[in-house]
């Protein structure tokens, strides 16, 4: 290591927000997004093709659930994504409120319809499994009810973003809702332990390791990772579109006031 390496001593250290804003440079974001998009797209196609093959063809029927166990390969990854995307939005909202990170608002706004879609899929696929296995499309138990609340939080977040004439005020209100609603995430995760629910407890992320057979764990994990890379692809596409729309608005505004002194 060179002794003359610039350690920044004697210079004022850039504030954290300055460092973050360097990463938040939209041009740099576009460059990184364009570089990683083909890889995440290819990974999504590969993972979901493999996942569907194992989920539908090369995994056994359950000894109790029969073939309905295959619904789990859509249901569980969707439910995980519902929680993961909400946590992502909460983190982005915190970054937006605390550091005024310019890309954080864009990320939160872009992620919320994706999370709503995954939550919807978790609810409906769970219902399609519940009818033959529990004998009911829906029960008001703790897990199902808290996930339904999560779905409404997503819808509320999307509605608040559009509820103000000034988009920055909408973003602030939506960020506060996202952070307050984050309390629901641990409630969902532990609802199956805290209350007597009809929903089965965790079988993957549990003390003592997964209690699921490897032949069923493989399609489940392939689908889950595939859903995650799909989320990244759609998130990047939506963020790119949001940034272009913002630039379009700025350019139109600038043209409306050409005679700025």
């Amino acid at each position, binding site marked *: 290591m060179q002794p003359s390496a610039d350690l920044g001593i004697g210079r004022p250290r850039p504030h954290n927000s300055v460092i973050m804003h360097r990463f938040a440079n939209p041009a740099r974001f576009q460059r990184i997004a364009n570089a990683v998009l083909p890889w995440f797209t290819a990974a999504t196609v590969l993972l979901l093709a493999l996942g569907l093959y194992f989920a*539908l*063809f090369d995994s056994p*029927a359950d000894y109790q659930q*029969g*073939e*309905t166990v*295959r*619904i789990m390969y*859509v*249901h569980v990854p*969707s439910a995980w994504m519902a929680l993961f995307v909400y946590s992502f939005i909460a983190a982005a909202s915190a970054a937006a409120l605390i550091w005024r990170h310019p890309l954080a608002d864009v990320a939160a706004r872009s992620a919320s*319809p*994706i999370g709503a*879609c995954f939550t*919807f*899929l978790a609810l*409906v*696929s769970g219902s*399609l*499994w519940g*009818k*033959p296995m529990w004998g009911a499309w829906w029960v008001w138990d703790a897990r199902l009810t808290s996930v339904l609340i999560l779905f409404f939080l997503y819808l509320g977040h999307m509605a608040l973003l559009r509820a103000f004439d000034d988009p920055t005020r909408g973003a602030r209100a939506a960020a506060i809702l996202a952070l307050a609603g984050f309390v629901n995430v641990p409630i969902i995760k532990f609802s199956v332990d805290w209350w007597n629910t009809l929903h089965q407890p965790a079988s993957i992320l549990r003390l003592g390791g997964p209690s699921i057979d490897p032949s069923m764990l493989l399609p489940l994990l392939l689908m889950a990772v595939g859903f995650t890379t*799909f989320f990244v*692809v*759609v998130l990047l*596409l*939506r963020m*790119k*579109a949001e940034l*272009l*729309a913002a*630039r*379009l608005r700025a*350019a*139109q505004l*600038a043209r409306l006031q050409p005679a700025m002194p």
Partner: protein
Amino acid sequence: MTSTIQDFLAMGGYAQFVWPAYGLAAVVLVGLLAISLRQLRKAEAELSALGLSRRERA
């Protein structure tokens, strides 16, 4: 051969629950991707239609 395909499609008698779960997931996720792509294309087209100067594009 036909019977194995029929067996597969029958999903042990649970076809009416298994296939809608997969079908709906495909429709929702592909639809979300299509809407997101269309919004991106639209924003790109509108921005290029403005014919921004080099300074405005920065």
